[in-house]
């Protein structure tokens, strides 16, 4: 009886398959960790065109500025998702590497007149150098202890920045950092900055995508799932953890450099624990073990914070409620689960109606 109902053609099947097709345009496939032959999909084209055309269609300075921030958060979340989402380690001090990147650029460009393009790469290197120094001792810790150690590192960084005014300008920070420029082209409008940031983000996404589809990406996942299993096949567990940590810090350093040259200022309030937690939230909301999800999470949270800033006094409770709801309904993150949930939901609606019909 039920089987017969299944085989029956109904008009709403058209609707479901149409909806699924639309979704498949937007939501990425479950990502594979080996290489397949490259083919440009409609989906990739859709993403690229959206990123390219969105600021032109929605031509508004506030929107551009918001998307610049979202892009910077996206780079941060991408770096952390390699560490948190793939290698399964927690870090609550990611904002410190963002800060190190920012201050490197700020100091190099304002005091030593080094071009912002060179400072950009130097920031990434400095952040990863510090990550190497910090990571070597603390990455032996696991779970909560690692979270506490990285949190401590973040706080120590803040104290050092505030207490060394000669180097970092102390509480006031550093001003008048020149805009990012390549070969005389200055990124001084929000629109130009938008293309700069999202261009860098796309480059880093491609890099990470190659990485997770190679032996390194598989090693990250192996370390997350079972360290004993990983070391039994010859994976240097500590080496992999350190490598991912350094890589994530390098991404954060690059993001920090872009932030400094876009905002023209660097001051310690930005790089607090709030930002670290925010980045972790972006990764968790976006989806663990997923590259696009954290970027979506970054855009979403940046918008949410901006939207709530109008209702200053209620912003914290609203923020909390939204996050809790999201974590209840999307525990694995939006990006990873949305596809599965929607397919499930659609099939559930179908089944429910059919069941009601049968019972009548």
């Amino acid at each position: 009886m039920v089987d017969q109902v299944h085989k029956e053609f109904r008009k709403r099947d058209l609707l479901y398959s149409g909806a699924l097709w639309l979704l498949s345009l937007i939501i990425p496939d479950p990502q594979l960790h080996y290489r397949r032959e490259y083919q440009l999909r409609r989906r990739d084209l859709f993403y690229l065109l959206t990123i390219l055309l969105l600021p032109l269609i929605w031509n508004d300075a506030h929107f551009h500025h918001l998307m610049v921030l979202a892009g910077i958060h996206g780079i941060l979340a991408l770096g952390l998702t390699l560490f948190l989402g793939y290698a399964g380690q927690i870090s609550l001090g990611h904002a410190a590497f963002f800060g190190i990147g920012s201050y490197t650029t700020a100091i190099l460009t304002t005091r030593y007149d080094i071009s912002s393009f060179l400072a950009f790469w130097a920031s990434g290197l400095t952040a990863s150098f510090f990550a190497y120094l910090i990571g070597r001792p603390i990455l032996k810790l696991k779970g909560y202890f690692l979270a506490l150690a990285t949190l401590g590192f973040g706080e120590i960084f803040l104290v050092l920045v505030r207490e060394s005014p000669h180097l970092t300008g102390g509480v006031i920070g550093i001003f008048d950092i020149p805009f990012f420029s390549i070969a005389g082209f200055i990124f001084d409008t929000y629109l130009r900055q938008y293309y700069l940031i999202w261009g860098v983000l796309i480059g880093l996404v491609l890099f990470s995508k190659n990485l997770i589809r190679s032996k390194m990406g598989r090693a990250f996942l192996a370390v997350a799932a079972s360290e004993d299993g990983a070391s039994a096949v010859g994976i240097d567990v500590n080496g992999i953890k350190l490598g991912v940590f350094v890589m994530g810090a390098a991404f954060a350093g690059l993001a920090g450099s872009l932030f400094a040259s876009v905002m023209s200022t660097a001051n310690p309030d930005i790089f607090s624990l709030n930002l670290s937690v925010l980045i972790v939230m972006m990764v968790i909301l976006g989806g663990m073990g997923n590259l696009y999800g954290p970027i979506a999470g970054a855009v979403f949270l940046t918008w949410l914070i901006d939207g709530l800033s109008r209702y200053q006094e209620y912003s914290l409770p609203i923020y909390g409620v939204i996050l809790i709801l999201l974590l209840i309904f999307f525990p694995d993150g939006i990006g990873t689960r949305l596809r599965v949930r929607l397919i499930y939901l659609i099939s559930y609606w179908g089944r429910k109606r059919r069941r009601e019909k049968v019972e009548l």
Partner: protein
Amino acid sequence: MIFLSVEEIVKNYDGVGALNRISLQVRKGTVKGLMGPNGAGKSTLFHLISGMERPDSGRIRFKEREITGLRSHEISRLGVGRTFQTLQVWGNMTVVENVLTGMHTRIKGDLLSSGLYLPWIKKSEETAMKEAKEILERLGLFGRWKWFASQLSYGEQRRLEIARALAAKPELLLLDEPAAGLTYPEAKQLAETFSRLKESGFTLLLIEHHMGMVMEIADEVAVLNNGELLAEGPPDVVKNDPGVIEAYMIRK
């Protein structure tokens, strides 16, 4: 030729003796069975050989080289593969990815060149993929290569773990109760796999409770009890050893 030799090894956990002056030898190209009641120290011995834990005293040599105190990934790179009593397959990856990860040390790549996807990475990854599929074919898992490892049945996960260990091309394979929880036909199939492995030149050290299986494929059997070596020798001799019979088979 003595391939692996364990000399006078001692291991205590907070004063509880797990292994007391155990000495064992495994010759190249043979299958050695390791038996004993629960808590006899078999798995502890495996942990010590594979470097997951360190012995309190004593030495372990592999191919004339001392490996005591090396870290487990270093020992694995020297050619010692192992499986676990409690399954350690990676459920967050597909079956073929599990096997590819087993080849980790044989695939080229590091954080930078893999990220940039330089030409030699591509070549190395492609040959690895071909080889991974061959290994899966050999262990009868090819039909499932796209599945997530967590979707496999228990017996299939056991075989996947062996496939992963084989992918690292080990010379010595430590198998910790590979037939635990398997049905009779599955265990029989596994025994056939092991005899094929032995023919193709692998050296196996095998912890097993299935008496029939051990007697069938092992060239030599060692029996542990309460951290002591009770008997060692060909299966027929050990089977009839009065000490073994008392300690292991009929304990009243």
